[in-house]
């Protein structure tokens, strides 16, 4: 039921998710941050039950931090991080699967457009994409992204597409997801562009 989608542009990526944490007929919270910051220049939007969401994103981000500590500060590229993440999903699949679908985006200096976006599901598939969406949201947003996305866009244009998608979801998606959180990953790192509801507000 979670909405997770992302758009890459020249110089970085934008990832957006809804902020609903609910089960059955009960809404636990409306200010959940579902975009995990993996490393200084990468983030992962995660959909699925809250337990797996938190467990998996912490597992990946802590292991990536461990790599940096063990290897003299060397950073893993977004491609390497995505492959590692996919490997963990695949390993867990036939033992105790993580029921998460993710969109991982990051910035690397030596990659042509700077930003790269990877879409992975709980079965361990992984694809590098220009834009992608997980869950029911994909039914509504993929056609918009198909239409609006262009090579060489800048951050402003990418965020506009994200906002267009959110407007569409608000109008046509059955579930009321009133709050969204949007994060951008570029050469300056990961930053929150917009959070309709403050995740740190307890």
């Amino acid at each position: 039921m979670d909405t997770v989608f992302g758009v890459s542009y020249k110089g970085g990526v934008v990832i957006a998710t809804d902020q609903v944490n609910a089960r059955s007929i009960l809404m636990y919270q409306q200010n959940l941050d579902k975009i995990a910051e993996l490393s200084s220049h990468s983030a992962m939007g995660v959909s699925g039950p809250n337990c797996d969401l938190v467990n998996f994103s912490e597992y990946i981000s802590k292991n990536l931090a461990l790599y940096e500590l063990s290897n003299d500060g060397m950073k893993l590229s977004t491609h390497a991080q995505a492959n590692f993440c996919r490997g963990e999903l695949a390993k867990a699949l036939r033992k105790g699967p993580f029921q998460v679908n993710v969109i991982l985006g990051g910035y690397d200096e030596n990659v042509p457009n700077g930003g790269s976006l990877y879409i992975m599901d709980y079965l361990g598939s992984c694809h590098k994409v220009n834009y992608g969406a997980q869950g029911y949201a994909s039914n509504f947003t993929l056609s918009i992204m198909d239409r609006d996305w262009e090579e060489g866009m800048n951050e402003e244009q990418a965020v506009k597409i994200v906002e267009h998608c959110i407007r569409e979801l608000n109008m046509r998606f059955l579930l009321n997801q009133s709050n969204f959180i949007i994060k951008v990953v570029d050469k300056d790192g990961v930053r929150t562009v917009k959070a309709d509801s403050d995740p740190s507000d307890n």
Partner: protein
Amino acid sequence: MASSGSGYDLSSSTFSPDGRIFQVEYAAKAVENAGTALGLRCRDGVVLAVEKPLQNKMLVAATTGRRIHTVDEHSGVAITGFISDGRQIVNRARDEAINYDETYGTKIPPKTLANRISAYVHYFTLHGALRPFGASTLLASYDPATRQHSLHMVEPSGVAYEYFGAAAGRGRQPARTEMEKLAINPKQADGGEASMIDVAEGVRQLAKIIHSLHDSAKDKPFELEMSWLCEASGWKHKGVPKDVIASAVEWAKKEIEEAEEESDEEDDEGMEE
């Protein structure tokens, strides 16, 4: 050699009173008495060369007893010392490289590979039940992400450093002296990066160094094994083609002859006066 171990050299998990681990030093001795291995980091790639002494006239020299091995497409190692020990290091390096690629989908960065090999070699220096490796490993590697090539050497103690020029084995001292004369250090080369030698020149120079160190009276006849990892080879670790080695050796022998003639003439002049 002076110091006797006198009881502190029985195990690699024992320090001597003056802070040495004799077993590791003895392992290094095994390398010091073996065939020379050289590595050179040139402007456009890395060259490895090993002197392979031909133990036996019956040996099928060309294909057996290889001392240079490919670890992954983008990495190669040259070993000297106990060749069987070196083989184990090569196998471990291959495992590390494959493992890294399967986990991260990327070729293992040179420094990381060097650190993994050195951690493995070091492990064998602190167990009572294991003996240190009697082999040094020269690692030529290329990082596709940063587009940098590099040369590392791992010694039996487990230390690994990055080098412009590295030498191990019998002729390492004179080899180092010769390598220092070459333009391989961008800070010292007069014209900076652009005036550094390229792999073609590196191949010739290493051939010359190995041949000039070899004493045909004392040492066994040898085969020269060479490999390179350079722009021309598509940044893949490959053996230097036999004809290139042959012409490098020809050039080397000529240079050595001319140098001997010159020094003979100088001797003669000295005597006349």
